[in-house]
Structures are given as structure tokens and as C-alpha cells.
């Protein structure tokens, strides 16, 4: 029987990078990493996934952008971002030193935009690209790229040649066949998968007798989605050979352990860091304590055991 280790090894390997721990700040919930500096230095995290970038700047959605639900948060931000050019020229030099694992999240509404945006960002000093395929495809009736295996694979195949960095594809839980989309992305050249993005959901203001959000539906995150996200992470991790980064409602170190046991290589945490700015480093500490208490020397011991 192994000796319980007072300081377990939290490190994980992801696409050739060694992360000090498996907790990555999720895209859209961490700005560009600078905003958290009054609270802690993000080098305490495994990595950072940036606010979603698009080829051109976007103002984002009007109207209400947030709506709280029981154990959850709905958002309809609309990919407000300064565009890839401003990111590469102005923001990236400021944030490059914040983390050894800087993941640039890139979205788009048509394949040509994806290719141009990924090409520009991948050529800059980032460590990895995370492809957001949950955006609606304007050339396909607004159906999200990530909903169908064929559409998802076509984006991944298109950006693969211009992406000289590890390419992680962020899957939408709204896919018709999530495992099918995952396998198609792997086949098309993805180096890793992250899941899940927010669940498409609806809130109605019954007094006003209309939808809360201008876009009618919005994305649901937070603890409400954890059990579904965990099941989906396990489904995908068992189907593909590439690493899977799990996320969805993680609030504690034990939640991280659950995703690792479901087969995740690492995790991302989003909403919990909005509820409480210092949540992510606390989760890392909780994971270390959990591993020490359970006599787990490293995460490989528990990865995929369920």
C-alpha cells in the first residue's frame, strides 16, 4: 500500500504542455486574466482560456445578458470581444506572462472567418487554441456548427492547416449526437476536446409574458448542469483517444476529482469564479487536500476509473 503523500502531484500533461494543476479558467468567465489580479495571480491555475475571440470586434448582445436560475446562471453575452487583431497587438503582450498555459478561445460564424482568426491567433504567442463551435453558422440557417458531426468536422478540418498550435475543440452539449460530434472532431484533426459549453435554455418573465432574453434562449451554466456535464464528459472520454477537458458546474475540489474519475485529463471552471472571485485557487487547494486525505499520489491513479 502506497504511503499517503502530504503533497500530492496535481500536475497534468495536456497536448505537450505540463500544467501545474488541472484547473483551467473557462472562457468567458475570466476576461483575459488581468481582471483577477487584485485577487490572486493566475499562475496558481493550470491555465487560462481567454474570452472568446472573433475575427472582427463584436459589441455583443443588447438587453438583459444575465439571468439567475435555481443553482444556475443563464447568459447571453453575444461574444463581446475586441477582435483577434486587438487581442494579438494589444492584449496578448500584457497577459502573456500570466500563465504558462494560455489558451486562446476562437469563435466564428462562418468557416472563412474561423480560418482567418485561428491563423492570426495561432501565429501569435499563445500555447493552445480552443475552438468554439457553439456559434450559429450564418450560412446554415443559424444552426450551431457544433450541433452536427459534419458541420463540426468541416470547421476543424478547415482550421487544422493554419493552426500550428495544439487545437482543442469545445463541444456543445446541444449537439444532436455528442459522441458522434466528438469522434468527427478527432477524425478531423483535433488534438483535444473540451466540454461542455452552456446548455441552450429558456427563461420566461411571466409578468411581462415574454422571454427574459432578447434572443429568447440563452446558455445555462452553474451547478445545475454538473451531473449532465459529468455524464457527457465520461461518454466522450470513453469514445475518443485524445485528451478531454471536462467542465460544467464545478464548485469544489471534489467536483474536479469527479470529472477526472469520469475520464477528464483536466477541467475548466467558469461560473464558480463569478460567484466568488477567489474560487479557482480555493478549488485547487481543495483538490490537493482531497488527494492527500484519500492517499492519491497523482491524478492518473483516478483518471477514468468510473
Amino acid at each position, binding site marked *: 500500500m502506497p504511503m499517503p503523500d502530504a503533497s500530492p502531484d496535481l500536475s497534468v500533461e495536456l497536448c505537450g504542455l505540463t500544467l501545474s494543476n488541472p484547473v483551467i479558467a473557462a472562457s468567458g468567465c475570466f476576461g483575459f486574466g488581468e481582471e*483577477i489580479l487584485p485577487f490572486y495571480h493566475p499562475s496558481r491555475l493550470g491555465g487560462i482560456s481567454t474570452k472568446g475571440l472573433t475575427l472582427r470586434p463584436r459589441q455583443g448582445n443588447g438587453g438583459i445578458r444575465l439571468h439567475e436560475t435555481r443553482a444556475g446562471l443563464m447568459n447571453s453575452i453575444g461574444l*463581446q470581444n475586441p477582435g483577434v487583431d486587438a487581442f494579438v497587438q494589444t492584449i496578448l503582450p500584457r497577459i502573456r506572462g500570466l500563465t504558462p498555459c494560455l489558451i486562446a478561445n476562437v469563435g466564428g460564424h462562418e468557416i472563412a472567418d474561423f480560418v482567418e482568426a485561428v491563423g492570426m491567433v495561432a501565429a501569435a504567442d499563445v500555447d493552445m487554441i480552443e475552438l468554439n463551435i457553439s456559434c450559429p453558422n450564418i450560412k446554415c440557417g443559424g444552426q450551431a456548427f457544433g450541433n452536427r458531426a459534419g458541420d463540426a468536422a468541416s470547421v476543424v478540418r478547415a482550421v487544422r492547416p493554419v493552426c500550428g498550435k495544439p487545437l482543442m475543440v469545445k463541444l456543445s452539449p446541444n449537439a444532436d449526437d455528442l459522441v458522434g460530434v466528438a469522434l468527427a472532431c478527432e477524425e478531423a484533426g483535433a488534438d483535444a476536446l473540451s466540454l461542455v459549453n452552456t446548455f441552450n435554455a429558456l427563461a420566461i418573465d411571466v409578468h411581462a409574458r415574454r422571454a427574459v432574453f432578447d434572443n429568447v434562449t440563452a446558455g445555462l451554466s452553474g451547478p445545475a448542469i454538473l451531473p449532465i456535464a459529468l455524464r457527457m464528459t465520461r461518454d466522450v472520454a470513453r469514445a475518443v483517444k485524445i485528451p478531454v477537458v471536462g467542465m460544467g458546474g464545478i464548485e469544489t475540489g471534489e467536483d474536479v476529482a469527479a470529472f477526472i474519475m469520469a475520464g477528464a485529463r483536466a477541467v475548466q471552471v467558469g461560473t464558480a469564479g463569478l460567484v466568488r472571485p477567489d474560487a479557482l485557487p480555493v478549488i485547487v487547494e481543495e483538490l490537493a487536500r482531497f488527494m492527500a486525505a484519500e492517499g492519491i499520489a497523482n491524478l492518473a491513479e483516478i483518471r477514468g476509473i468510473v
Partner: protein
Amino acid sequence: MTTDLHVVEGNEVVAPGIYRLSAGPSSPSAAAPAPVQPGQFHMLKTVAPEPLLPRPISIHEVTGDVLSFLYEVKGAGTRNIAALKPGDPLRVTGPLGRGFDVDALTGRILLVAGGIGIAPFRYLARALAEAGRTQVTLAAGFRSRPYGIDDFQPYLRDVRIATEDGSEGVKGWVTALYSPRDFDVVVACGPVPMMRAVQQGCVEAGTRGILSMEARMACGVGLCLGCTIRTTTGMRRVCTDGPVFPGEEVFFDAHA
């Protein structure tokens, strides 16, 4: 900065649905409190798991390391806070946001408050008095009986009250209580229709206007872009670019 557990010292009803809460650090060994600028806010959350998110509440007064908040019960979050009793724990993150620049407020200063928009003006009025400003006027409008105005009158030259039901002061809107031309700067906090009227009045009079904005927030610290408003310089975050904005920069049509 941290999210600290504070202990509630008082939480009294001051008017129907309006409470004043004071809270201090949970342990005397806690680090020296961060200086709080008038117009800043804190994110407050009880230790109950629901609702998930903390609530942004502007600072009403600071006494040593004790923070006071004047707030209106509007939903589940403020209802939970209103139920707190002395000795109960409260999670406090802050101070947050860009508050009022006291150094830049000079001459004849008018504070315009609508309802719970009175909350940040007590601490601002004290800071202005301490900075030697002697020409500070408050114009405050309420639906019915006024609240939150009694204890900062020593800092003001003039207090003008309007109530919609005529229960006190002038019957009608707060904007009928003043002419922007009589002031060098107008500082406003209140509901959108009032803020829009203040902005328009200031533009017409050529008087500098300062608006303290309110928005739904998730994080309160600039991460989520959930609280943005439309301004002349693009979409800006109420939490970190504000909540205090130059009056002429805010567009009100996008979030009426």
C-alpha cells in the same frame, strides 16, 4: 483583495422594503480594510447556497472597519440579506468599481437621488464636507415617505425633497426641484427615467453631469461582461469601468 466573511452588526428596516445593514470583519486579525471610495460597491452574499450569485450594493457609510449598506429588497438575494440578524455571517467582496472622484467635484454641487439611489450619497456627502466643499445641495425624490436622508444633513447646505404622493416635500418628480444652471456639477443616482432626465437637463444647461449606474451583475469584478451598458466609447462594464460615468457618455435607449 479577498472575499471575506464579515459579521452582521445591525440590519434594520428604515422604510417599507428598505434596510440598513452594517457589518464588520469576522476576526480582529484580518488585514487593514481597503480604503473605500464613495460610489464604490461591494458584492454581498449570505452563506446560503441559493441564490448562487452575490448582489452588488453601494457603500452607504464607512466607520473604521465597519461597512454600512442601505438597500432595497428586490428579489431573492436581497431578501436573504434582509433576513440576516446581528452575529450572522455575510460574504463581502470589495470595495469594487470606480466611484466618485471627490477631487474633481468642486463649486456648487448638486446630488440628485431617486429612491434607493440615495444610498451612495451619505458617504459621498461626508467625503465632500471633509474635502472642504460647502456648497453641496441634495435633491431627493421618493415614491412616498423619504428615507436615508436624516443623518447626513450636517454635510449639506440645502436639502430638497419631492415625493410622488405628496407625503413630504414637493409633490412630483425630483427633477422639478432644481435647475441644472444653478450648479457647476450634478451627480445623479436613481432609476433610468430619472437618470435620462438628469442627463438631458445637464446637456441643455451646459452643466457637467455625473451618473452612478446600476446593472444586473454576475461577478462584479469585470470577468463576465454581463453588466455592460452602451456608451459613447462602446459597451462598458458597470462593475469595473463604472459604476460612475461622465453623464454625456451614457446611452439610455439600449436598456430602458
